[in-house]
C-alpha cells in the first residue's frame, strides 16, 4: 500500500490503515521526542499527542509534502511547547537547589565528558538544540529540518553551526583530549 492509498484509507476511517500509519512512523517520532525530552513519560506523552493530532487533522494534510515531514513538524511543535511548559514548572524547584550544586568546584569534581556534553546541549536555546539533535544525533538532512521546523535550509545550517560553536566553547577544557 503506497502512502496516498494509506492516507485515503485513514481518512475514510479504516482502523487497520490507522495502525499501519502509526507503525510506519512511530519509531522515528518517539526517538525524536525522547531525544528532545530526555524523559520517557514526556516522550510517550508527546508521541501520543502527535498521533492524536495527526489523525484528527489528516483531512488538512496536503499531499505535496511528505507525510513523515508533516508528522515530524507536529511532533517538534508538540515537544517544544510541552518542554517549555515543563521547564517553567521545573525552574521553580531547581532554583532552590542550584547554589548547593554549583558550590563544588575544581576539575576533579567535574562530571565526565558525556555528562558535560549533555548539560551543554541541554543549555542550548530551543531552536539550536532542535537543529543539533535532529542533524548531528538523529541524522536528518537540512532540507528535512527546514521543512519540519518551518525554516529555510540556510537557517538550519547557520543554527547548527552556532550550536556547535557554543558546545565547543562549553567543552573548551576537553578540547585537547578530543583533538589528540
Amino acid at each position, binding site marked *: 500500500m503506497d502512502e496516498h492509498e494509506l492516507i485515503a484509507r485513514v*481518512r*475514510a476511517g479504516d482502523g487497520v490503515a490507522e*495502525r499501519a500509519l*502509526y*507503525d510506519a512512523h*512511530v*519509531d522515528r517520532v*518517539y*526517538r525524536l521526542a*525522547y*531525544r*528532545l*525530552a*530526555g524523559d*520517557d513519560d514526556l*516522550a*510517550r506523552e508527546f*508521541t*501520543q499527542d502527535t*498521533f*492524536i493530532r495527526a*489523525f484528527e487533522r489528516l*483531512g*488538512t494534510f496536503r499531499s505535496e509534502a511528505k507525510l513523515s515531514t508533516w508528522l515530524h513538524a507536529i511532533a517538534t511543535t508538540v515537544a517544544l511547547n510541552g518542554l517549555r511548559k515543563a521547564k517553567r514548572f521545573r525552574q521553580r524547584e531547581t532554583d532552590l537547589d542550584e547554589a548547593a550544586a554549583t558550590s563544588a568546584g575544581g576539575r576533579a569534581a567535574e562530571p565526565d*565528558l*558525556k555528562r558535560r*556534553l*549533555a548539560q551543554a*546541549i541541554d543549555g542550548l536555546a530551543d531552536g539550536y538544540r532542535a537543529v*543539533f*539533535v535532529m542533524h*548531528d*544525533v538523529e541524522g536528518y538532512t537540512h532540507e528535512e529540518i527546514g521543512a519540519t521546523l518551518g525554516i529555510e535550509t540556510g537557517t538550519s545550517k547557520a543554527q547548527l553551526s552556532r550550536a*556547535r560553536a557554543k*558546545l*565547543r566553547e562549553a567543552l573548551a577544557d576537553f*578540547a585537547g583530549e*578530543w*583533538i589528540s
Partner: protein
Amino acid sequence: MMDDRFEERLREAAQDYHRPPDTPREEMWRRITAARAARQARIIVLRPALRWGLGIAAVLALGVAIGRWSATGSPPSTEVAGTGERTSAFVYQLAAAQYLTRTEALLTGFRAETRAGAPTAQFSIQARDLLCTTRLMLDSPAARDVRLKGLLEDLELVLAQIAQLRSSGDRDDVQLINQGLEQRSVLLRLRTTSPAGPGPARTQGAL
C-alpha cells in the same frame, strides 16, 4: 582540520545524548485509541447541548425578525378577533418563504461550486445559520404540513452535513452530500415548495 575532528568527536559523543529505549508501541497505541474514543464520546455528549444552544439562538433571531416586521410592516387594524391568529400564520408563511429561498440558493450554489472543486468553507458557515432556522421551522406550526415537514427533515440532515465539512472540504464527503441531494430530490422538492420568482420578489410576494 581541527574543526572537522572536533565535529566528528562531537557527533560520536552526542549519540549518547538522551539515548531512547525501545519504542513502547503497543502501550502508546492503546492510549492513543483510548484518548480518541474518549474525545469522540465527549463530542457525542456535547451535540444535544449544542443543538439546544443553536435552537435558542434561532428563536432569538426569528423573534427579532418578527419584531422588526411587526414594527414596520403590520397593517393598522381595528379588528381584534382573529387578527392575532391570521398574523401569526402570516409571519410563519413569511419566515418559511425566506428560509426556503435562502436554503435553495445555498444548496444550488453548493452543488455547482463543489462540482467545480471550489472550497466549501463559505457554505459551511451559511449552513450553520440555516440549520438554526430549520430546527425552529420544524418546531413551528409550519411543520404541521406533512410534505413540508419531510422536506425540512431532509434539509436539516443535508445542512448538518455541510456545516460539519472541514474548510478543505473532503472530496468524498462532498460527493456523498451531492448524491444525497439527488437521490432524495431535495432541490426539486425545495423548488416546488418555494414561491416562484427571484429572492427579493418572493419575500415581497409573501408580504
